[in-house]
């Protein structure tokens, strides 16, 4: 009934190697796109945009970025928050120095800048791995936050060290600043998510992705079969940091509007994105989305349920949120250590056999 391959004939190599080879899966993907592009922009409210959809989209980009590095290439990184800060501060400097620059360019350049910084901090990965690399990237996290606090040039010498995103237009509509409308911000983020996810999907299926995975599975073996570890690891750091930088830039320009590096891009942000890919599923694009949705939506959903519906005390509800989110994370990790993505693919396997499982 669902996910049947019967009758779905592939007559060319292109058909055979497409991203969604099963027709049902493909239609489901088109349906999601149609809803996201054709329906949500018309019904979106400020609350849905600012509290749920925009953070979800932005964290999805960050999760894809970290997944490329950790899930596909096997290099553990705890520097995500710091790299996001690089994206944010680059876009701030660009926006204030070149008021005429459009936001797409600003965001892409922020990603490119972060990619360069990421490669620099990725250099130690050629010598160290595992926990030791995690500690090296942790140093990047603390160094970058310290740097953006220490050097006033980064925050244009403002009294408080806060950076605030000025209003910028795209096709005559404000994308950043307080007058930006919910649907504009949503579509702007969605466009980035769509393009970046599409690129990531094709990168990971191609030669580069296979090199990354070879390095992840066993770097010595990979080297012997001709994968250049320098190129593979550094390209993973570059691509991953590009994604993370774009996410950091969008988090600042579109979502928050004003940030302070220690609070918005601290170590807890690195852990948040890491939890997203662990819960979602390492080495899976769907997992990046699922993990981001889980970590963004669950607290809001719990708040709506406990405080707004059941009328609980706000402090009690917040404490329970910690208990419930923590409990669910443990539950998922015990029941399915490979994350939500694995649950999803298991469900698909079951559906293919249903109703006659063997």
């Amino acid at each position, binding site marked *: 009934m669902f996910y049947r391959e019967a009758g779905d004939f592939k007559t060319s190599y292109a058909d055979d190697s497409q991203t969604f080879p099963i027709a049902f899966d493909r239609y489901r993907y088109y349906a999601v796109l149609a809803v996201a592009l054709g329906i949500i922009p018309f019904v979106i409210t400020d609350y849905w945009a600012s*509290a749920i959809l925009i953070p979800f989209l932005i964290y999805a980009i960050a999760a894809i970025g970290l997944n490329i590095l950790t899930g596909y290439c096997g290099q553990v990184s705890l520097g995500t928050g710091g790299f996001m800060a690089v994206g944010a501060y680059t876009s701030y400097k660009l926006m204030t120095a070149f008021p005429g620059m459009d936001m797409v360019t600003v965001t892409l350049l922020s990603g490119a800048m972060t990619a360069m910084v990421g490669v620099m901090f990725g250099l130690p990965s050629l010598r160290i791995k595992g926990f030791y690399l995690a500690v090296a990237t942790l140093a990047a996290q603390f160094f970058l936050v310290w740097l953006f*606090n220490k050097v006033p040039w980064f925050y244009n010498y403002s009294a*408080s060290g*806060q950076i*605030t995103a000025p209003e910028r237009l795209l096709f005559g509509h404000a994308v950043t600043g*307080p007058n930006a409308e919910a649907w504009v911000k949503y579509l702007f983020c969605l466009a980035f998510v769509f393009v970046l996810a599409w690129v990531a999907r094709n990168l990971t299926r191609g030669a580069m992705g296979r090199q990354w995975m070879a390095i992840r599975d066993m770097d010595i073996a990979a080297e012997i079969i001709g994968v250049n570890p320098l190129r593979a690891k550094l390209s993973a750091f570059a691509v991953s940091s590009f994604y993370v930088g774009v996410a950091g830039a969008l988090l600042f320009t579109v979502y928050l509007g004003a940030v302070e590096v220690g*609070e*918005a891009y601290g170590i807890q942000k690195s852990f948040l994105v890491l939890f997203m890919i662990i819960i979602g599923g390492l080495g899976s694009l769907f997992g990046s989305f699922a993990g981001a949705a889980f970590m963004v939506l669950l607290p809001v959903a719990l708040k709506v349920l406990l405080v707004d519906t059941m009328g609980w005390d*706000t402090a009690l509800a917040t404490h329970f949120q910690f208990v419930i989110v923590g409990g669910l994370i443990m539950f998922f990790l015990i029941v399915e250590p490979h994350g939500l993505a694995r649950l999803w693919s298991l469900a698909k396997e079951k559906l293919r056999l249903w109703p006659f499982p063997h």
Partner: protein
Amino acid sequence: MKKLLTTVAAGAMLASPAFADLMFPDLSYRTGPFAAGGIPFSDGYQDYFTLLNQRDGGIGGVPVRVVECETAYNTERGVECYEATKGDGALVYQPLSTGITYQLIPRATADGIPLHTMGYGRTSAVNGEVFSHVFNYPANYWDAASVMINVLLDENGGSLSGKKITLLYHNSAYGREPIRTLETLAAQHGFTLNLLAVDSPGQEQGNQWLQIRRDRPDYVLFWGWGVMNQVAIQEAINIRYPLENFIGNWWAGADHDVASAGQAAAGYRALNMNRLGDMPVFAEIQQHVIDAGLAAGDGTNLGSVLYTRGMYAAMLAAEAARKAQEIHGVADITPAMMRDGMEALEMTNARMDALGMPGIGPEFAVSCGDHGGTGQAIMTQWNGTEWVTLTDFIAPDDSVTGPLVLEDSAAYAAEAGITPRNCNGS
């Protein structure tokens, strides 16, 4: 016929409150490292509105509805709270967080909802020509820095030249606010200013206190909040720093900050923007709110430093709402009317007496151009068991803060593309 009229009248009386209410959102934090300060403030804020509802039937006959939203001092959750409550007719936001304030300044201005950041937030919001919807009366951080230096000048015979003063601050927008003023004052009065930042949440201060121990500054000024305060006071005791030379701002001078150190912390001084001690209004809150089982918290915070300040914040909001009702002749006011009320707010000693809070704050009047009040503050000292008031309200040096406000607000206006309104013409 008479019966019918009474029924209609009763029906109208019953029905009208259901439609009209004044919604005051309370972006509180009862969890996280800053909860110790957030809880008493929020209790005081909510209890005062409950008192108004119970005793007077609301403000101008319209009941008040307080909607609490937990931010945990986190800016992302602050945004969520703002978006969740703004559509509900929120009259004024008081986030009690400088970080969230920076988020909300452009948003609230665009949405036409006033923002009251009492003694925190962006100092240059004093300039009402640039910040039309942001108010920070009765005092701000630059006033606090200036008042502290004025007190020290007084104690040193009018000269601080050659003295060493260290600023120990929370490494965030909040802690960095006073630096610019202190630097200006250092140049003016000839003292050396040394800056020591403590990363949030502030439990790790060993390093900074080692430096203080080595430098032996004459005074340590302190911009702390939450768990950071207790730790700093304990560290000061540990290195035997003379506590009367360790001076906190008004967010670092609450009961819970010194309670754990107790007698050992005697001598520690802190600024306050509102007066302490018993006031007639506390008995009324006890009677109408706490004894009636309607308190926001467990009622134990009544009369504490931050409870009093939360209550003061609620009182200023209620008085502004009353002013707005008066100006516009409407009982059920909108956020735009509330803004007008805040801009026309005038606090007099007679009014504070009438409200049962004699002299709780300085007398001040808000105007179109000046959203900051007088900036006066009192100095208090912990004597080991309670906070005692040392001085009357002390004025800051406006000749120092005034130009800085103009400079910073002009920079903001240029960055955000705001054309300042002209307050002289209207």
